[in-house]
């Protein structure tokens, strides 16, 4: 299956490949079918179709200088390249490019950990470094810092941050783009740039102060296509003394308003780590691997139910409508006092609130207690999530190969949680998906100031019809979200054009501004064309 | 081993933790609109009072200790004149206008966009009224 970059002839590609081979070594330029297979997105909803974002080749430079050369060669031949760090961004495109035929620039070989400092609490890493690498480096040296990492932990801090990725601990650290501090970037013209204090060669504050003096351009490189990031710094949390977690339950459906308000209050004062919302009522309504509760089907049968109807359902099930797990990191006495304070605040706000599931440990977690904790909450990398990745449905004959998350940015209020399911149901029914759904939406709180809500759709490599159906479902969800003022914070290539088209304030003024910048910084459009809807001039079609 | 500064700190700590009658924070004045067109006399003075509290009192007030305008004038006049502008009897609207529009020492000048001519006239009237 020969694939070419758009508008590039085989001859031009071959000429570029020849130059790349001499620049970075022929063993690091991949063109065979078998090698290219490794750069396909195993979660692609377009798998095996003509639209699948298959690269024409891949390059794996070993140094910044080689990246610069590779970029200059790409410019010379106008062959687009798509940088990946570790290519582990599954559900968001993995190692595959946005536009079919783009050459992948695989930075995995650049995997040095340049510094971890536990006096000033930061690290500086290259793109090929994984969270496992960083964790092991810290363990070997006995450094007293905690990593904030996503689950699974095989990805790259650089790659994750550049896709506005997230972690699981304390607010200022789990937004991985916010917690970054400065970067080194190869610009589309091959020039090397250091942002912030890196602009001053002898400054020892590159990972301490973000801004430097003058404007800050870092934001362009997250979810953007304005350069190739080759180093990045991150702020880290000093290892806290202790950890405590406890569960809070709220009995009624409408209690979620007070529950969220109280959690927001705790979060924004920096008292808690990531809150984990749950809904015992939903578990009763849609038990794992069992048919939906008939009472739920009755509840949802005549349009979206009223609050009273939902509360009647909750009462009948005899379980709390909502729960939230609160997590505290800090000095022993501080975490105890914070948990006590949180309970007092909850009691004040929610009549009938109950509490349990208290667990305490000193940090770092002693080896013999690792089974008792969720590793990602402790900054310990894991692959555990693959245990559950496809277990939330009964898959029968044809279990899914992957999933595409369709997660919208929703205001951090109880009211929005009470109505979110309505949108999902609308989105599903619009494409004839009649599966049961509950009114209990629990959000992810990865980004500390907002809720991220929404289902995933499954992908199936050997079932293009299922993929096509799920693609329609995904698109329907995106369209429905937009009616409510919600939109995905991140998504796989197949949906990026659609998602960014929703940002249409003042006739897509923001996108037009991005395009203005793109044309100035990358006139040949060689870096990641199409990433988050930003195309070079030559590929800019009528907007969705 | 605790220095002199430290001992002072300890004494103050005693006061703070003993929770002597705590005074609530003085409220700040609210943004005034312009005085009604054609306002004069007592009405203008009254409006000028409000405008003074908003625009000038944060430095020239007496509601807190050590406000910089009041403090600077205390140092400057060494008791010859009141440090508080509101207690002065020698101010004219013209003088007030000149200082406000030109600034003096650490005090910057103020622009018409932030402090309108009409409000400045009211402040002048307020500060120059007979006490």
């Amino acid at each position: 299956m020969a694939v070419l970059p758009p508008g590039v002839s085989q001859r031009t590609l071959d000429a570029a490949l020849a130059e790349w081979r001499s620049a970075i070594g022929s063993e690091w330029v991949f063109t065979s079918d078998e090698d290219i297979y490794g750069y396909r997105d195993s979660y692609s909803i377009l798998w095996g179709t003509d639209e699948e974002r298959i690269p024409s080749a891949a390059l794996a430079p070993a140094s910044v200088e080689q990246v610069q050369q590779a970029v200059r060669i790409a410019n010379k031949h106008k062959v687009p390249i798509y940088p990946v760090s570790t290519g582990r961004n599954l559900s968001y495109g993995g190692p595959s490019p946005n536009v079919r035929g783009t050459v992948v620039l695989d930075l995995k070989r650049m995997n040095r950990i340049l510094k971890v400092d536990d006096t000033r609490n930061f690290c500086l890493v290259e793109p090929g470094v994984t969270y496992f690498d960083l964790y092991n480096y810290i363990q070997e040296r006995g450094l007293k810092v905690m990593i904030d990492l996503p689950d699974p932990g095989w990805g790259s801090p650089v790659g994750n941050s550049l896709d506005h990725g997230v972690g699981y601990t304390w607010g200022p650290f789990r937004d991985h783009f916010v917690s970054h501090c400065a970067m080194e970037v190869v610009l589309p013209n091959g020039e090397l740039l250091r942002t912030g204090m890196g602009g001053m060669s002898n400054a020892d504050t590159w990972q301490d102060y973000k801004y430097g003096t003058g404007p800050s351009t870092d934001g362009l490189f997250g979810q953007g296509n304005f350069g190739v990031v080759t180093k990045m710094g991150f702020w880290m949390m000093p290892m806290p003394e202790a950890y405590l977690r406890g569960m809070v339950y709220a009995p009624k459906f409408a209690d979620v308003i007070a529950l969220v308000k109280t959690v927001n209050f705790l979060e924004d004062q920096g008292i808690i780590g990531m809150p984990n919302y749950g809904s015992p009522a939903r578990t009763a309504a849609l038990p794992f691997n069992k048919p939906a509760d008939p009472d739920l089907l009755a509840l949802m049968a005549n349009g979206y139910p009223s609050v009273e109807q939902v509360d009647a359902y909750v009462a009948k099930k005899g379980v709390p409508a909502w729960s939230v797990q609160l997590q505290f990191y800090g000095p022993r006495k501080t975490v105890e006092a914070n948990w006590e304070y949180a309970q007092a605040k909850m009691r004040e706000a929610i009549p009938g609130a109950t509490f349990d599931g208290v667990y305490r440990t000193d940090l770092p977690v002693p080896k013999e207690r690792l089974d008792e904790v969720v590793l990602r909450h402790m900054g310990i990398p894991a692959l555990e999530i693959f245990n559950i990745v496809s277990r939330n449905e009964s898959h029968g004959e044809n279990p899914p190969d992957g999933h595409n998350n369709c997660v919208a940015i929703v205001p951090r209020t109880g009211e929005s949680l009470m109505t979110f399911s309505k949108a999902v149901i609308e989105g599903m029914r619009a494409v004839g998906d009649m599966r049961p759904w509950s009114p209990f939406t629990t959000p992810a709180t990865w980004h500390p100031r907002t809720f991220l809500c929404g289902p995933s759709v499954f992908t199936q490599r050997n079932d293009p019809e299922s993929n096509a159906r799920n693609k329609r479902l995904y698109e329907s969800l995106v369209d429905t979200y937009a009616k409510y003022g919600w939109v995905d914070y991140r998504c796989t290539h197949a949906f990026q054009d659609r998602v960014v088209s929703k940002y249409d304030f003042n006739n897509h003024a923001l996108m037009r501004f991005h395009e203005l910048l793109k044309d100035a910084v990358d006139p040949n459009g060689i870096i990641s064309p199409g990433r988050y809807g930003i195309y070079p001039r030559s590929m800019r079609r009528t907007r969705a | 081993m605790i220095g002199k500064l430290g001992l002072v700190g300890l004494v103050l700590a005693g006061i703070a933790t003993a929770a002597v009658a705590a005074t609530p924070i003085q409220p700040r004045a609210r943004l005034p609109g312009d005085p009604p067109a054609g306002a004069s006399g007592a009405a203008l003075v009254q409006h000028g009072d409000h405008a003074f509290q908003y625009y000038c009192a944060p430095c020239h007030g007496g509601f807190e200790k050590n406000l910089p305008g009041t403090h600077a004038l205390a140092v400057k006049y060494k008791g010859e004149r009141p440090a508080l502008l509101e207690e002065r009897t020698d101010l004219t609207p013209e003088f007030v206008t000149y200082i406000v529009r030109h600034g003096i020492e650490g005090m910057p000048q103020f622009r018409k966009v932030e402090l309108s001519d009409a409000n400045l006239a009211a402040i002048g009237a307020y500060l120059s009224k007979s006490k």
Partner: protein
Amino acid sequence: MTTEPTSPGASRRGVLQAGAAAALASALPFTAAAAMAKTARFHKAVYDARFPEGVSFGAEMERGGTPTHAIKGDITPFYNSLYRQWKEAPTLIAGLTSANALFALELMANAAGMRVAFRAEQRLDRFGAPQWLLEGPPGLIDAAALSAADRDWGLFAARLAAACPARWSAPASSTAACAVASPAAVDERVTAWVLAPVVRI
């Protein structure tokens, strides 16, 4: 592309037919693997102790002299145990885990210079009956398909793994399916596998 059939439906039918054939041939003994087991040099083997197949797979590996590592679902501890080694060089390893655990490990192994050389994954056929879907080098898969399905699958998978070449040089070229006597946890798609270092030709 390479291993992935371009027309999934057609290929799936082919696989199912092979499965039917294998079921018929289930009475034949499988001795070749046992004979070759000693020649395999696994650096380590991993098994998921929640599955009965896993336990017998692990036992058979230990009998053959391979150090084993038991997990309960999460593959992370096993990966951690290989982290240093894989920084230096790829290794030959085998396992019986969930398909998801293999998925995670496989991507890490790919980056360290290994490929899946053999895979036997439990799935349901279209009638809802469990079966093993085999993938690997022709000699091995043909032998397996002709062998018994109706036996201790953990043991059988360990022997198949042991018979797998210790170096990977080409994508799996043969697939087959065998019926499974006693389904364990189909939800988790129990999978036996070999990850082998790549030899570039």
